[in-house]
């Protein structure tokens, strides 16, 4: 396998308390994880499990207390590589309103590349391309604050893509969106991965979204407790539920049926797979 684009090597991180005497629990504890180029990895975990901290550690927005984070073999703690690291791994956050800086969509997308000192003609090209990929090109002259949440979030993603990162980390980008907004954002992200080959680390609460990934990493209590394909992860319904997460309804239904001695296969994930599984049994 190729070299990892992000490598967490035994990383521990804790936030500072306001009162100096109090030492907070580690938000990430002895965490090791490798993300490879071209992967689409979903990260699941309940609130407070350390997912967002992981996102901020991934490109040096936070630095580990111990252990190392390597981005394309560069240590995020090494200041002189800082700009290169942030160009390699871009982060998109949950609330689109906190990420928009300009009053016109295309200016907002241009903000990143402008700060990298890129030539105007190249910026123009990147802005147009990025907006097309997320399906917001027709809105390039609009005012961002008048867009819907899903549209704003796609503009924020375009702003990251315009910096041409090799990896993009998204921290619950759809948590504040409605089903349509979620679908559009998810479609844009899948295109980044499949068409541009950008590595995607996708932090989410939505199990249906996690099913779309190649690989799922489950976090609990500041570390990684499960790592596998969606099929592998969701076949262990009980473990997932025991840490306060849910599995897709299809998996839960299949699990309940299996417990009543109905011999369904173990890895039915999509609606069609479950329907076919049931159909097969009924036909005998």
């Amino acid at each position, binding site marked *: 396998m190729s070299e990892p684009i992000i490598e967490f090597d035994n990383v521990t991180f804790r936030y500072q308390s306001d009162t100096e005497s109090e030492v907070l629990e580690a938000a990430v504890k002895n965490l090791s994880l490798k993300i490879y180029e071209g992967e689409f990895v979903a990260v699941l975990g309940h609130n407070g499990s350390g997912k967002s901290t992981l996102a901020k550690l991934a490109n040096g927005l936070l630095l580990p207390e111990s252990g190392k984070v390597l981005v394309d073999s560069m240590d995020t703690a090494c200041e002189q590589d800082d700009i290169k690291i942030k160009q390699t791994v871009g982060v998109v956050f949950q609330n689109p309103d906190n990420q928009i800086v300009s009053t016109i969509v295309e200016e907002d997308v241009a903000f990143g590349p402008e700060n990298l000192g890129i030539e105007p003609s190249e910026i123009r090209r990147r802005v147009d391309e990025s907006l097309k990929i997320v399906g917001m090109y027709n809105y390039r002259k609009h005012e961002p604050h008048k867009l819907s*949440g899903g549209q704003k979030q796609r503009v924020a993603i375009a702003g990251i893509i315009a910096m041409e990162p090799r990896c993009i980390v998204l921290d619950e980008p759809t*948590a504040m969106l409605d089903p349509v907004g979620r679908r559009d954002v998810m479609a844009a992200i899948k295109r980044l991965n499949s068409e541009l080959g950008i590595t995607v680390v996708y932090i989410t609460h939505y199990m249906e979204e996690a099913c779309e990934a190649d690989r799922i990493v489950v976090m609990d209590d500041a570390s990684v407790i499960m790592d596998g394909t969606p099929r592998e992860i969701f076949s262990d319904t009980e473990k997932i539920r025991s840490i306060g997460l849910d599995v897709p309804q299809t998996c839960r239904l299949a699990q309940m049926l299996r417990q009543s001695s109905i011999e369904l296969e173990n890895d039915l994930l999509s609606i069609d797979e479950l329907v076919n599984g049931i159909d097969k*049994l*009924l036909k005998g």
Partner: protein
Amino acid sequence: MSHIKTENLTYTYSAGTPFKITALDNVNIDIEKGELVAVIGHTGSGKSTLVQHLNGLLKPSSGRVLLDGEDIWSSKEKVRSTRFRVGLCFQYPEYQLFESTVYKDIAFGPSNMGLSEAEIDERVRRAAKYVGIPDEMLGKSPFDLSGGEKRRVAIAGVISMEPEVLILDEPTSGLDPAGREQILAILKNYRKMTGNTVIVVSHSMDDVARFATKVIVMNDSRVEDSGTVDEVYENSAHLSEIGLSVPQVTEVFIKLKKLGYPVSEKIYTVEQGYSELMRLFSERGLLK
């Protein structure tokens, strides 16, 4: 008997300018006392604008809002009293916490109602109990709490006013599954203990199926449909056209039915799905 009701409610933003937008267009809803109502619809369908009318936060451009049969805008006193009787909790209410302690934050509403100290104290503790905030947390700064805890404190701040109608705008958004369950339990519990009306704006068709006694579907500034979960979810194809999606398990049964199996399509929760399939397997003698 009707508890809260709108009559031809219409609301336009930026009226008289070229940016005029009709956010509500002739909306008629009628909610009875003690119901647990879900308002669903995609972003921009008018859900939030609708609920902001119910406690007099927005004034109708035309039409009326009636609480116990009386127009809430009939007098100044009436509007003021409505704001105490109908409690509205915004989306992401944790951003509105502002006091130095959890206790003071929850007490803010009741303090403005002219209650005695003793009564305020009683209400704060009762509200904290409803949302599962333990006594020892009351002295803490709300900013030191986790996201889920902050959300519950903010909801307690509305519950402490003990509103006859409790309205929450997307109370579970951004929470993990365990956090969502907790919030839903609070709502059900508040309704059960007080017999009051609860209205919840939601995107999650899965959640709605499990708690609502009545569903109101908003689309393009109008009420598209309303009724029980069964009545509304029946038309799943239409719901997905207007940007909503029926639960996965419902789709499983729609597909099984298409394959010719004698199953009900009115299956909205995993538990219902399980019973329905067990019935089918048992009828075919496939159970061991």
